[in-house]
């Protein structure tokens, strides 16, 4: 009964407080200076993006001959060309994207599904070996995934079934990436679960629901932000994976987006039209960037890996 009343009272009070804070509206000169500063920062942020977008629309030259952020005759030819065949390998963009999508979904789904259960156990239960396991996960968390590339290559290479070599397959690459992503997923989601009040579950347990029920009915719905962010990070890790696929895969049918991208820069930049490179970069970045932007408000609350608590 008192709650609506309290809100009604506190809102004008809060507004009055914000109004009286500081010196209020900045003066015109100050506002102009602030705007100039913000504009300058915005321009540096936007410059590389504008450059790539304009390059992808300008197919008149194979390489940009001047700084031209507004191409005179914009066309989507470069996009058409890279969708059909991005590199000299006879692989189309959809084929590459499908391979990358496989790795991305594999990692995203498995790291969240397996990780959230482990995170729940670490966050809510006290059991023998808890400290030891947490330290073990923390220890691998700080290791870059690349640090296990040698043993994973050798081990996965030993799994051969007929003509199928696990190392030389998308599943092999996915497993290698998952090895690095899972500790992150567990730790990140544990950090978030730690912030959910225990009382919510206790109430459910009193009502007769078991651990598993409480987990599914109460914890999972409340964990949406962290599940979204962890899943997204897993997806990005898989979608843009480079070093395992570049080292493990030899069959062009399995090649990924990042491998094709590598074939367009560095020593290969000379033989690639830069409009193709630009269009390809945008096609790779756009899907994850858009999803990331949509999940933006979750990012700070959903990224808890920095906080180390017992």
């Amino acid at each position, binding site marked *: 009964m008192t709650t609506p009343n309290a809100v009604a009272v506190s809102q004008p009070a809060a507004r009055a407080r914000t109004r009286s804070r500081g010196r209020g509206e900045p003066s015109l000169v100050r506002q102009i200076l602030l705007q100039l500063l913000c504009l300058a920062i915005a321009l540096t942020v936007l410059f*590389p993006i504008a450059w790539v977008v304009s390059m992808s629309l300008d197919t008149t030259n194979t390489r940009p001959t001047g700084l031209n952020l507004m191409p005179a005759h914009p066309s989507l030819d470069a996009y058409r060309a890279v969708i059909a065949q991005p590199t000299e390998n006879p692989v189309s963009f959809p084929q590459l994207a499908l391979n990358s999508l496989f790795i991305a979904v594999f990692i995203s789904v498995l790291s969240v599904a397996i990780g959230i259960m*482990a995170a729940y156990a670490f966050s809510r*239960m006290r059991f023998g070996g808890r400290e030891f396991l947490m330290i073990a996960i923390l220890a691998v968390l700080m290791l870059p995934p690349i640090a296990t590339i040698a*043993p994973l290559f050798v081990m996965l290479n030993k799994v051969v079934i007929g003509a199928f070599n696990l190392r030389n397959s998308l599943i092999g690459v996915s497993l290698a990436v998952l090895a690095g992503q899972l*500790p992150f997923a567990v730790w990140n989601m544990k950090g978030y679960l730690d912030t959910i009040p225990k009382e919510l579950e206790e109430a459910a347990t009193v009502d007769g629901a078991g651990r598993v029920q409480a987990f599914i009915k109460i914890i999972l719905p409340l964990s949406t932000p962290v599940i979204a962010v962890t899943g997204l990070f897993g997806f990005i890790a898989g979608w843009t994976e480079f070093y395992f696929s570049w*080292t493990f895969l030899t069959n062009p049918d399995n090649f990924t987006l990042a491998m094709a991208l590598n074939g367009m820069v560095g020593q290969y*930049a000379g033989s690639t039209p830069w409009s193709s490179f630009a269009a390809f970069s945008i096609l790779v970045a756009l899907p994850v960037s858009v999803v990331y932007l949509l999940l933006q408000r979750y990012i700070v609350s959903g990224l808890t890996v920095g906080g180390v608590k017992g």
Partner: protein
Amino acid sequence: MNTRTAYLFLLPALLVMLVITFYPLVYQVWMSFTDYGLKNLKSTAPPPNYVGFDNYIRILNNDIVIPNFDFLRILTFNLFWAFTNVIIHVVLGVAIALLLNVKGLKFGRVYRAIFILPVVIPPIIVATVWRNMFDPQYGAINQLVNSTVGILFKLPPFTLDWLNQPNPIFSVYPLVLPLAYFALLAANVWLGWPLNSVVATGALQSIPGDLYEAAEMDGAGAWMKFRVVTLPHLRPAMLPYAIYGFVVTFNLFYLSYFMSGGGPFGQTELLVTTAFRLVNEQHLYGVAAAFAVFQFFILLVLTLITNKLGKATASYDA
């Protein structure tokens, strides 16, 4: 009872990690004492020979086929790289968050929407795009110079090769900083400050306005308010991110690999790119394993130091 439930929840993760994370790590330690190479890969091949600490000694003595390999120089550069990046990211991130937090700033939401963009672009794309931006002839950086300063002063075409300048800007062994380092730094600052700004903004908005009022009543100026009110509230939010950012930057593969390719003369090579080259280019699996063991201990020491640092400064406002 509780323990059994806990392990049921843990079972899938433990099984997966046992097979693809922990076992490879143990296997790696064994590999590091062998001469595991291409010749041992075939299923019919003989097992590798035991070589004792040979791989470790060769790494420390820079006795590895990778050109310009120098363990101490790479480690020093790697530390310097991570440290300078994180300092700049945090300072810029906080400064810009403060700028956006000024009361009455027009178009604040528009700027916020623009400033988040580098965060959402995959690092591999950022790295390859910046590689092309620093191209001596066709890159956007040199063309920007040409179309502004160049036209104004009628200069000849500016074709500085940022990523391959052979003479280092700073060189006091073991720290060698070529021009490429500053190009990498520029790209990573572009990439890194926005997330710090997002975190700082979150922390700034959680500071109760009364605190500023109280400080004002006590006669505090802008700088005093920043030191007494803002900074202590930023610290607990920023510090974990700074530590996390340090580890991420320390292990940042893409910029070094795609922008400078570790060059010139391996001077911008990091531990992660070196580890990659040992496996991908040299096929020295045994040496790579020993190298990874070094990496593990270096990161362990770094984590312990940063944790200590975190705890020491966390007690500041307690």
